[in-house]
């Protein structure tokens, strides 16, 4: 991303909050809840890839699913083309559904085992009435070719394909409606390393060819670095750092990001020997009862009194490098 031209914002997330109640019984009071996403805000620029990283359970998948309205947000807004998607009626929502699509994590669970590959991809065309008859078949073949699969396989069932091939089918399904934004929910973490590279390269090619915008959710830092223009780091449902890929890896400012980056192995034995790891103490606090103030303070080596009292805001520390830390 060049800093000179002001990039066009295609999707804007503002103070998005998603809490799940946990007492679900008939007589539950519904007071305790899981704080999955706790007020995240970011902008997605047209044509970019924004990486969303964090460890398991930090709310990154929930954030993705809430943005696409699989879950209704507890509060906050997601604005697509200036309109809050949570305010849209069913008809306008269908329009957004064809513009924002999702690629799922588990290629074994994300394809209906009772449908042929052709019908899985064709379902998108049926729902949005995009094509029928011969045109539908042609479009399915075209999509299969786009993702590097043999069109002859349209009549086969998902269980006949390998993990990488299945993930391609999932990608073809999301492309069927000509989306503008694709939320990739850990699309490669269930695949072999060699297949991961294939899929990531294909996603990059598609982005270039079709002008797609990606929100790329992942926990593999080196892969995210490779594909993302900008990266947001999440911890316990909040974004702690958001900046360009090179800035994040070059000079991480948040202590959590620093610890996270120090955990990446370096593929050079001499350098790897000298690698200094920042080992965090303790474990991630429970999202049912998160700590006051800064969520990271319980494990932060730099924590002071102010961290327990005040929630650090995500502020620009120069050249679009946003950090949520009192000492950045």
């Amino acid at each position, binding site marked *: 991303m060049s800093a000179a031209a002001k990039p066009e914002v295609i999707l804007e997330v503002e103070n998005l909050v998603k809490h799940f109640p946990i007492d679900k019984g*008939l007589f539950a009071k519904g007071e305790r809840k899981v704080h999955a996403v706790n007020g995240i805000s970011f902008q997605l620029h047209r044509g970019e890839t924004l990486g969303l990283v964090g460890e398991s359970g930090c709310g990154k998948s929930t954030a993705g699913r809430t943005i696409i309205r699989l879950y209704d947000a507890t509060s906050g807004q997601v604005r697509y083309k200036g309109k809050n998607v949570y305010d849209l009626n069913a008809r306008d929502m269908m329009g957004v559904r064809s513009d924002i699509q999702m690629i799922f994590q588990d290629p074994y669970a994300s394809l209906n085992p009772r449908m042929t590959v052709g019908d899985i991809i064709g379902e998108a065309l049926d729902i949005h009435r995009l094509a029928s008859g011969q045109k539908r078949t042609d479009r399915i073949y075209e999509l299969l070719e786009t993702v590097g699969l043999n069109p002859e396989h349209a009549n086969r069932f998902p269980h006949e394909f390998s993990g990488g091939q299945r993930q391609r089918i999932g990608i073809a399904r999301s492309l069927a409606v000509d989306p503008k934004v694709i939320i990739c929910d850990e699309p490669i973490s269930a695949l072999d390393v060699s297949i991961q590279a294939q899929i990531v390269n294909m996603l990059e090619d598609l982005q270039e060819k079709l002008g797609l915008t990606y929100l790329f959710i992942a926990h593999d830092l080196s892969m995210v670095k490779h594909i993302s223009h900008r990266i947001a780091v999440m911890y316990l449902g909040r974004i702690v750092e958001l900046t360009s890929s090179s800035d994040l890896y070059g000079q991480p400012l948040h202590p959590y990001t620093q610890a996270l980056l120090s955990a990446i192995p370096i593929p050079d034995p001499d350098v790897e020997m000298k690698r200094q790891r920042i080992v965090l103490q303790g474990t991630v606090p429970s999202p049912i009862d998160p700590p006051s103030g800064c969520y990271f303070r319980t494990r932060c080596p730099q924590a002071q009194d102010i961290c327990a009292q005040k929630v650090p805001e995500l502020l620009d520390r120069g050249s679009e490098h946003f950090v949520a830390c009192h000492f950045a």
Partner: protein
Amino acid sequence: MSLPVDAFTPLQHELKAEVINRPSTTLWQDAWRRFKLNPLAMGGLVVLSAIVLFALVGPFFSHFDYKTNDLESVNLFPNWVHPFGTDELGRDILTRVMFGARISLAIGFGSVLINLTIGIFYGGISGYLGGRVDNVMQRIIDIIFSVPDLLYVILLMVVLGSGLGNIFIVLGIANWVPMARIVRGQILSLREQEFVLAARTLGAGTKRILMKHLLPNSVGQIIVVAALQIPAAIFMEAFLSFIGLGVQPPLVSLGSMAASGRLNIPSYPHSLLFPAGMIAVLMLAFNFVGDGLRDAFDPKMRK
């Protein structure tokens, strides 16, 4: 040792898109392939087909009917004219067993059809809506489940009166609860699967998600439960007829035949032996087929 470079020639091959060699199989074909490998299940299926043929076609080849009395040939032991003998009113037991098996099969399939309809509907709604609705619906099921079904089957029969139609209704009502639970469990676990989420991100409506995604993936489980409920319904009908609450004369059922045969055990054991044997064979066959279906649809459940 080193080889000269010109000893190698490049392998000539074209780069093609990946090809799948295995012929395409649907889940049904896979299940049938596994079912065929199970000798008990296949045996059950053969016996069952024979009984169905015996019950449906058999009476056309019989010289007797099931209700006409013949007081000149009362309580005959099996012979060439009456292979299974006759009962205390001179009726041919073979013909009566055929008709009894007909009724048993009709009850088995008919009542399961009723509880299938109620169960899928109730379980589908409960599982799909989830949350509070599910909670209330499941508590209702718990209450029904906590009453022994024999108790209210008998009570219902007494209230409604005995007769073939009422047996259908009562057995249908009695057995929908386990079916509803299975369907609900399936829907509940499938609902959160990523392929359902994918359909929702595409904008699929409730009807499409239920009909195209949730129910087709529960069909295997539903068939297995239904197949194991059929023998239970048949046995329940035989039991009701045995205690006199079921099918009324002149209609005949395996249960009522066994009941009247029971009185003559010391002198004419064949009049109990044949209907009771038929019930046993029918139950065994259905259970073997049901178990075979379970293993075929879900090989992991075998242990």
